């Protein structure tokens, strides 16, 4: 199958072999991945909790979003690159790993949730920037986002235990 061949090809790349064979490359990249993901999840949670009206109530949603989102995206890029490198070191094995598959699905769901929020409730955010409680659509988006990202951390940790 084409996918299996591509995975085997990826795993045979010199950089992937180097990561798999080195004693410190995999853990080193993993440390970068963990640092990046703590910043991704933490910064997203700040905005989610604000959308739920739980924290930072004196802070406008738009101001908080403009402060955190560039750093969320920067950290996400680092997490994606480091994650791809970790994946390459044993691509065929990870592709079969159930928690890894669930994690990818959850990241996709988090992305869809964010897109839906951005084209709906967030468009009118200037009208409810300081309003509490926040609109139902914003609270739903915040709840889903928190749920998906907590799930990403859980299933991500589980990858190494199966």
């Amino acid at each position, binding site marked *: 199958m084409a996918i299996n061949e591509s995975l085997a090809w990826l795993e045979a790349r010199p950089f992937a072999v180097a990561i798999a064979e080195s004693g410190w490359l995999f853990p080193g990249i993993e440390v970068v991945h963990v640092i990046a993901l*703590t910043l991704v999840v933490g910064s997203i949670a700040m905005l989610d909790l604000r959308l739920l009206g739980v924290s930072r109530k*004196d802070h406008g949603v738009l101001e908080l979003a403009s402060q955190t989102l560039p750093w969320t995206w920067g950290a996400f890029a680092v997490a994606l690159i480091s994650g791809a490198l970790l994946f390459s070191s044993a691509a065929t094995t990870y592709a079969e790993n159930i928690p890894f598959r669930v994690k990818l699905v959850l990241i996709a769901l988090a992305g869809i949730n964010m897109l839906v929020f951005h084209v709906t409730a967030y468009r009118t955010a200037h009208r409810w920037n300081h309003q509490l409680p926040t609109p139902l659509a914003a609270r739903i988006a915040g709840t889903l986002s928190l749920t998906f990202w907590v799930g990403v951390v859980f299933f991500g940790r589980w990858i190494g235990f199966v």
Partner: protein
Amino acid sequence: MSVMQTLSDAIAQTDGSIAIATAEWVIPTVQSIHILAIAVVMSATAMINLRLAGFVGSESSVRQLADRSLPWLWWSLPVLLATGVVMIIGEPARELTNAYFWSKMAMVLLAIVLTILLQRLLDDCPYREMAPAKRRVTRAISLLSLALWLAIIFCGRWIAYS
């Protein structure tokens, strides 16, 4: 036999340790909660540093931002302690006889002391009214605590590989 080896052998024989080690879901679950709490600590520390460095919005004062962020950091610490204790009880030798674990504990204590200092400095006098020398001290303390949390994550992950 070292004291720590004797201690971890003793812990390993307790019912609690055996129960944690036998139930396969406990360690990954507790580690996931531990990572989520680290995400809160990291993003709170990062936000304060970004604000002090002038990278994020100046519409709120440093004090306001610290007042919003630091309670989250403080509440994460008991979660980190509780989940950390479960990991020690479940796998005592992995932690207690590991030099990275003890380095991590020393850095956690130092990071807590620095955070208390930072909070005192910001409570005493608004950042914008501080003398330049005091500002530099405040920024240095904040930056050092961020560096410590990064090193703590490094050691935490490295415990698994040493």
